[in-house]
């Protein structure tokens, strides 16, 4: 006997027999979840743990048995001292039933197998056989369960029902009604999570189909989550449509860097090209969802404009050592009080730590990050569009109010008091400076991934890596430390930011920091920062670590 469910506060546990083995589950657990926890996976289409259970797909049927009662309402015990069951003669759905004391479940009896086979046959009656062109193929529940529980041949002789195909149900979602199995996950998601109840089922019987309410489109910022939860290929992402088959994709667990929420994601890439980003379940951050804005904000990774080689005073300098050495030498030639650093809230903690080290090495006192804000919502999207504002504050790169020092930088440059500027992963023109101001500087060192007004004026341009191309950690708005992972390699000669910063610092101090890998940087950073004490990239794990920090927002 094992107790699979562990809950922090003591709750009432009930005894449930699953396939002959007795387990204990907290009261209120759904039978389908209890079976999963007991290692008996129940196939399902309409059931989703984050949504309500309508019980309309009938796929999760199991045999249930109530404890046999003696006439005096006592459970009748078998020879092993456990209650006997009265099995209900028809299969029951397991997604809408909570566990109760003495409940018996059979997940794999011949009746259950027959029921599943029958349900699958009905679901497949009108389903087109177009797996070769269907984007869902490879991660399609209908395919998987047909293999596992269904039968190989169709007995259906009539013509299949024709429904609308290739419908642009929203700006980012394409609908194929013929493939739909009417599980209504999308309908419930839009109603319950996105609070934008625009889709529903129209018509009757075999002609039922998913449709948008008249005059509306599926244009919610969370519309692509319906694609994720659609168990078949009915809802597909217009952005990912026909781009790549899913079985080629290498999946890397990472986080979204488009706002301070830090939704957990999976980056899917093949041969150094990212094809899509999908949410990853993390009940402390994003449940199982993410917004369309963050999800699609990766195409710039493969922009033809990506910066590929260091540029020193207008000339390409493919020799990194040389480029970094000249940048450091020219920075050292300027007095410390004439230098300012503009860092970015998009940098990882490790990079921010190294930025602080560089500033210390140069003797620079004036540094800050550029705040980015935009309208947010009360679901996931944060108004703070810098993913690591908390990290910048913690590591002392940002002013206590991000951006407070920027006006001093602007004034210093305009008055000529500041002669050198280091801009890291930012566009200085967003900090109040103009392109004309930047030309006044004698030295402008910048790291960037795409060209902007700052890179155009830069004396030393050092191309760096984007979020999917590097490892590191970030702290979200709730003080949760999370981890970025490398899904692809940086293009051309572009380098990881931490290597550039280490190179600059070492060139300035003319001594080695002894950092050979990002882990060394993390070790130094956690040793120097009390709030991060004892942590490492591997200890952060896939789901992150909550830090004892005041909430940022």
């Amino acid at each position: 006997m094992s107790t699979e469910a562990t809950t922090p506060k003591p709750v009432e546990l009930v005894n449930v027999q699953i396939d002959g083995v007795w387990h204990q589950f907290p009261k209120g657990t759904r039978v389908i979840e209890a079976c999963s926890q007991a290692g008996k996976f129940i196939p399902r289409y309409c059931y989703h743990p984050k949504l309500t259970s309508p019980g309309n797909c009938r796929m999760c049927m199991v045999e249930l048995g109530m404890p046999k009662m003696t006439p005096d309402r006592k459970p009748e015990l078998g020879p092993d001292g456990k209650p006997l069951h009265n099995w209900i003669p028809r299969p029951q759905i397991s997604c809408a039933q909570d566990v109760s004391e003495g409940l018996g479940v059979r997940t794999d009896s011949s009746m259950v197998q027959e029921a599943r086979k029958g349900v699958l046959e009905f679901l497949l009656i009108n389903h087109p056989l177009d797996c070769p062109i269907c984007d869902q193929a490879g991660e399609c529940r209908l395919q998987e369960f047909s293999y596992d529980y269904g039968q190989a041949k169709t007995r259906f002789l009539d013509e299949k029902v024709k429904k609308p195909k290739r419908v642009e149900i929203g700006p980012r979602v394409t609908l194929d009604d013929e493939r739909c199995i009417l599980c209504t996950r999308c309908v419930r998601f839009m109603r319950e999570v996105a609070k934008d109840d625009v889709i529903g089922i129209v018509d009757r019987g075999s002609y039922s189909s998913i449709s948008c309410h008249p005059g509306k489109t599926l244009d919610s910022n969370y519309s692509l989550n319906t694609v994720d939860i659609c168990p078949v290929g009915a809802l597909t992402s217009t952005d990912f449509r026909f781009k790549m088959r899913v079985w080629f994709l290498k999946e890397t667990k990472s986080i979204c860097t488009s706002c301070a929420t830090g939704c957990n994601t999976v980056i899917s890439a093949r041969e150094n090209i990212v094809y899509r980003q999908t949410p990853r379940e993390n009940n402390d951050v994003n449940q199982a969802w993410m917004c369309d804005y963050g999800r699609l904000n990766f195409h710039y990774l493969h922009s033809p404009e990506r910066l590929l080689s260091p540029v020193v005073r207008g000339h390409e300098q493919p020799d990194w050592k040389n480029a970094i050495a000249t940048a450091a030498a020219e920075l050292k030639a300027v007095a410390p009080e004439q230098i300012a650093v503009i860092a970015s809230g998009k940098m990882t903690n490790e990079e921010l730590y190294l930025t602080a080290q560089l500033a210390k090495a140069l003797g620079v006192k004036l540094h800050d990050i550029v705040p980015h804000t935009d309208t947010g919502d009360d679901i996931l999207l944060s108004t703070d569009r810098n993913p690591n504002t908390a990290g910048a504050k913690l590591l002392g790169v940002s002013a206590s109010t991000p951006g407070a020092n920027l006006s001093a930088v602007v004034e210093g440059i305009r008055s000529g008091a500041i002669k050198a500027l280091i801009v890291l992963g930012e566009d200085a023109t967003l900090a109040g400076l103009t392109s004309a101001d930047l030309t006044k500087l004698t030295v402008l060192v910048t790291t960037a991934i795409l060209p902007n007004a700052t890179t155009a004026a830069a004396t030393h341009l050092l191309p760096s890596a984007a979020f999917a191309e590097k490892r590191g950690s970030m702290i979200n708005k709730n003080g949760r430390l999370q981890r970025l992972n490398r899904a692809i390699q940086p293009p051309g000669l572009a380098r990881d930011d931490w290597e550039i910063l280490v190179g600059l610092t070492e060139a300035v101090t003319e001594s080695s920091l002894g950092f050979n890998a990002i882990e060394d940087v993390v070790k130094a950073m956690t040793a120097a920062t009390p709030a991060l004490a004892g942590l490492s990239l591997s200890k952060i794990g896939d789901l992150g670590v909550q830090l004892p920090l005041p909430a940022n927002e």
Partner: protein
Amino acid sequence: MAYQVPRPKLTFAEKIYLPSVIAGLKITLGHLWRMLRGKTHVCMQYPEEKWDSHLPPHYRGAPTLVSDEFGRTRCVACQLCEFICPPRAIRIKPGEIPAENKFAKVEKFPEEFQIDMIRCIYCGLCEEVCPEQAIFLKKEYAITGTSRAAMMHQKEKLIEMGGIQPGVVNKWNEKK
């Protein structure tokens, strides 16, 4: 440890070798004589003689993309051949058929389809795995080129080599 190889005891005839020499000459000169009289069947003289007309029906030559009777290239860019190809010779870039096209129902087609004939091992798995009966190994076996680029069979070349393959299942008809 030295090991003494056991040697067979030889007869006198064997010791002087000459009878064996004559016996050997009899065999080789017999072959020579048969050859001179044209009685020996020697191997096929390529390129004057070729296998072409004698190739068995299951012969596996170069993979090609076939078209159906209606002029549609049967491939829908499902990329299963790309997946199964053991030497990774196949590269496909899928694309969407525009809605106004007469084959719009099929939705998907290969924008680019490339088979690297330097890599191809003629195993035929692509033909076997294809759910659309779109890729067939034809009987061309003399695939040569003077550059790497010439050995990359692009879509146009593959379609031209494939030609029209009648009599396969028409899956994308009005009933489906």
